[in-house]
């Protein structure tokens, strides 16, 4: 393969570009398993590793990552697990639904039907505890970010921007327009498995309006 593109993200982190989702997560898992990095965080187009420069000087860290990234593991096609989630989409749970649907020239019902019919898959976790970036949304549906983020949306809120959903596991600030609310808890620190979702999981949405 070609030499991986590697760049610094600040003075104690490095990123390696990997376009394909499965390869990105396979590399992230391999980097995490190597035990060499403080944190390994997949993004939308790269994997970022954080290191302690007092343990690995920056130039050595860059060389190490380059070597590890050249040995990207073979990506296995693991059959994706599918999780069914219930989404409320009444006016209280979906404050931006009517506007976003209208901007797409659709009724709320038709808009939601196209969301539910999309091949939804958790692209990555991140942002804050339990938040899921969900890819696969019907590419014809368009939604820009809010100009001013909301200070607080309820736990389970479903944000949408073009091409993706964001599942807000926790109550908190949200910059994406909200088109529904998931009924199932997405994060619970008191459960043995606190996280409901994981990268690569497919989602079937049952929408109630």
């Amino acid at each position, binding site marked *: 393969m070609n030499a991986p593109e590697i760049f610094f993200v600040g003075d104690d982190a490095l990123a390696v570009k990997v376009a394909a989702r499965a390869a990105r997560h396979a590399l992230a898992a391999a980097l995490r398993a190597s035990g060499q990095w403080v944190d390994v965080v*997949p*993004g939308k187009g*790269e994997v*970022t590793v954080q290191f302690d420069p007092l343990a690995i000087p920056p130039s050595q860290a860059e060389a190490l990552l380059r070597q590890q990234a050249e040995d990207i593991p073979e990506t296995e096609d693991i059959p994706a697990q599918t999780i069914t989630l219930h989404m409320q989409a009444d006016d209280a749970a979906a404050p931006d639904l009517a506007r976003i649907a209208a901007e797409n020239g659709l009724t709320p019902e038709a808009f939601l039907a196209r969301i539910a019919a999309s091949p939804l898959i958790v692209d990555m976790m991140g942002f804050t505890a*339990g938040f899921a970036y969900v890819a696969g949304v019907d590419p014809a549906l368009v939604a820009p970010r809010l100009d001013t983020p909301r200070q607080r949306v309820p736990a389970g809120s479903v944000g949408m921007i073009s091409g993706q959903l964001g599942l807000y596991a926790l109550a908190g600030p949200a910059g994406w327009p909200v088109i529904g609310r998931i009924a199932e808890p997405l994060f619970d620190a008191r459960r043995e498995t606190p996280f409901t979702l994981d990268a690569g999981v497919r989602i079937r949405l049952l929408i109630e309006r």
Partner: protein
Amino acid sequence: MALTVLKPGPLATLQGSARQGLRYQGIPASGPADPLSMALANRLCGNASEATAIEITFGGAAFEFHQDTAFSFAGAALSAALSGMSVPAHEALEARRGDVLTFDHPPSGVRTYLAIPGGFRAETMFGSASTFLPAGFGGFSGRALRAGDQIERAGAANKPPPLATPAPLRPHMARAHSLRAVPGPDFAALTPAVWRETFQTTHRMDRTGLELAGNWPRPEGGGHRPSAALFTGAVQLTPSGNAFVLLPDAQTTGGYLHVLQVIRADRHLLGQIAPGDRISFLSRSTEDAYQDLRAKAGYIAEWLPDFRF
């Protein structure tokens, strides 16, 4: 029981170590916003740097001791009142059962760390006792301290020797801050003028971040990029025309432009920046930042051999 919270002030939480290895699950470092000041308070109690302490925000807090105990505090507060008597920061102090310790609003800085020998008892989650408020775990039932909360001592109540923080190691609290920074991955959205500007913090600040107002360029094309990893000290340019500096409870990924990164050696300073303070950035290369970190770590290691940046 070691003490009761009489008044928490605007925000008081239990904080211990930073969390590691879970940013990909959205779990950030959390932990003290100014880990150096917390370590200095712990040192005077004979504790490890990351022993659980109370992080007090802006003073206005009061605690009643229920045991005779040594204690110490460091950070924004230069002094506190122990049953009416002024007691100084950065010294090993003694309280009697029934004594009340009160903190006023500090003249500069934000956070003060109160430590006792053995540390405070806290709930451990994801490998740390630190309170992470956005998800409600760690610390004291995953929440901010309230009046009436009774906090236990975690370890042994050893009596530390009567030490004081050496004067050169006491962090200087000010209303103007020079932060060393390296270009972030989206630095191209800025111009070199950023190194000459002075920015001012707004009233939007908490443990997730600080808003910086000033002469930021308007990001072209809406100022979004595909979400990528972010760390404490990231400076993000937002479509509002202001920037945010991320603190330990911040989001672990995001899609605003990541224009600067405060260097690892200086991130402890972020916890003492108050609304209205003036901020300037000093340009560093990755290699400069590495040498800065080595120099600061070497300097601090004599007094805090276990402190980790």
